[in-house]
């Protein structure tokens, strides 16, 4: 068992422990903390798989997102501090059913992959050399450059005419912009002209 397998076991265990603890805990903030343990361990798993950009994004987006969730969880749900949330048995059964179904789908997918056929591809991806310093080449496991190139529609790693992701990237960007404007429109302070005039 080498260091990587040891680390994988550790972080996989932490991911599962965090996820289970989110379900079991009854306190909003403890749930949020367990969620962060779970998501941060997933980001560590991404690093172990040499997907450094995805790992960093996982950390940045989910930790930041959970902090905002935490603020709203504390400000909007609890009238007193350290509030307990209780779930009814029916909700528990429903959630357990969905969870088991998800597990079935995931295990079916994982078992149906022909790992032997893809072993040379996996070996090529994981066996990377990290240059000791300075400029890291795109092929050496540093995934930012190829990802950025693919987003603007260039795939130098797949040959000249391979399709990139420019259109999906633009669609998602415009979608996010629409969501932002919509949120700003909904959240803006409404002017109550009639109320003011009545007060006067």
């Amino acid at each position, binding site marked *: 068992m*080498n260091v990587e397998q040891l680390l994988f076991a550790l972080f996989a265990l932490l991911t599962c422990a965090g996820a289970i603890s989110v379900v079991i805990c009854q306190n909003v*903030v403890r749930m949020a903390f367990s969620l*962060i343990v779970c998501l941060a361990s997933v980001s560590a798993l991404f*690093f172990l798989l040499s997907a450094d950009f995805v790992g960093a994004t996982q950390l940045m987006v989910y930790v930041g997102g959970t902090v905002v969730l935490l603020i709203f969880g504390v400000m909007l749900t609890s009238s007193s501090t*350290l509030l307990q949330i209780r779930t009814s048995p029916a909700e528990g059964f429903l959630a357990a059913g969905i969870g088991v179904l998800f597990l079935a789908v995931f295990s079916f997918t994982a078992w149906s992959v022909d790992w032997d056929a893809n072993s040379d591809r996996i070996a090529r991806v994981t066996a990377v050399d*990290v240059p000791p310093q*300075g*400029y890291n080449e795109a092929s050496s496991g*540093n995934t930012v450059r190829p990802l950025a190139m693919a987003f603007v529609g260039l795939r130098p790693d797949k040959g000249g005419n391979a399709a990139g992701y420019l259109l999906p990237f633009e669609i998602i960007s415009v979608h996010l912009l629409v969501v932002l404007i919509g949120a700003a429109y909904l959240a803006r302070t409404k002017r109550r002209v009639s109320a003011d005039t009545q007060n006067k």
Partner: protein
Amino acid sequence: MSLILAAESLAEIIRDTLTECESCSVAIAAIIHVALVGAFFGLPAGIFIWAERKVSARIQDRLGPTRVGGRFGWLQSLADGAKLVQKEDLAPAAADKFLFRIAPYIVVIASFAAFMFLPFTDGWSAVSLDVGLFLLFGMLSLEVLGVILAGYASASKWALFGGMREAAQMVSYEIPMSICALVPIVMAGTLNLNEVIHYQSADWIGVIPPFLHWNVFHPVAGPAFVVYFVCATASCKRAPFDLAEAESELVAGFLTEYSGMRWSFFFLAEYASMFLVSAVAAILFLGGWDDGFGIVRSLKGSSTDVLAPSVILGNLIGAAVLMAKASKLVLLQIWVRWTLPRLRIDQVMTTCLKYLLPMACALFLAAVVYPIALLVWTGRPQLLPRLNNEQVKAEVLTSSEVEVKVAAADGEVIQ
């Protein structure tokens, strides 16, 4: 071997010289890295706590510590630490004990983890990644989480107010800070911090000294440096943005219920992250390990042997230069803290959302447009004549390739 153990080069050296065992060499290299980064994490924090006391005393026309360890009170931080270790480890009866106990560790570990990505000198960084800066900011946002948890778990209104203020402040100041950090990134075309420094480091061209290539002297990146530094001060909860612990209104904010070692962990993390954001400012805008007169560059020359005396000397000077720049910026933060009064929470938000954020966006836009405009009018994307970016990259790439080959050749000889 994957990126998480990017102790690659040191691990290889150890495997070739000391032991054949792969896991052992990786473990030994990791321990050496952690010890070195830990020294850079702990020592500056201790020194700056002493400096804060001395500088604040001088600003207020006092003497500050004068007894412990000689005339200037050098050992004051150590004495403080010894005092804090002896204190009782208290937790309020109403607190969420588990989160209350774990929050200081989150803060310290997040701050420490962010140090891994700092290039202390050319090639001397624990982890050199292409996402270096991005990951560093991700780690810094983890630190805020610890503060919010501490504020909530204390079950005290002062602490909760402090935690909520910190959350609001972080969510808004993170944006202009990241956008301003993007300005040098756009100019250098990389997120790798060491490469950003390589972009700013140059040789003498006639009578033009190399420090004019630092980003701070760039017409767009110069103002971005100022905006970044203001936001960085806010992100460290330093006055005039220390609303999270505002002692005149909130007793001590999120720190109210803490004492002893757990309290000092927060303190340690605060000074360490002051040093961290200052070092990032020095790397992005002030040329990092580049001394500005070509000394490090000429010492290192084009030598490819990492263990040659001149290269090691150059690297040591580079590390000292980076430390000096970062320390100057920390002293600036201390000076600002004891000079300016604290803002109100609404003023803090106004400063960020109405002034810093539009400024950051305009600067980012300018950073994209400026090289294009210069290219149209003068024919080259910078004002100063210099090597272009591709040449710099190619140079670095070949030197690292040669090093790998040299290391491989050494391994063969030993075997």
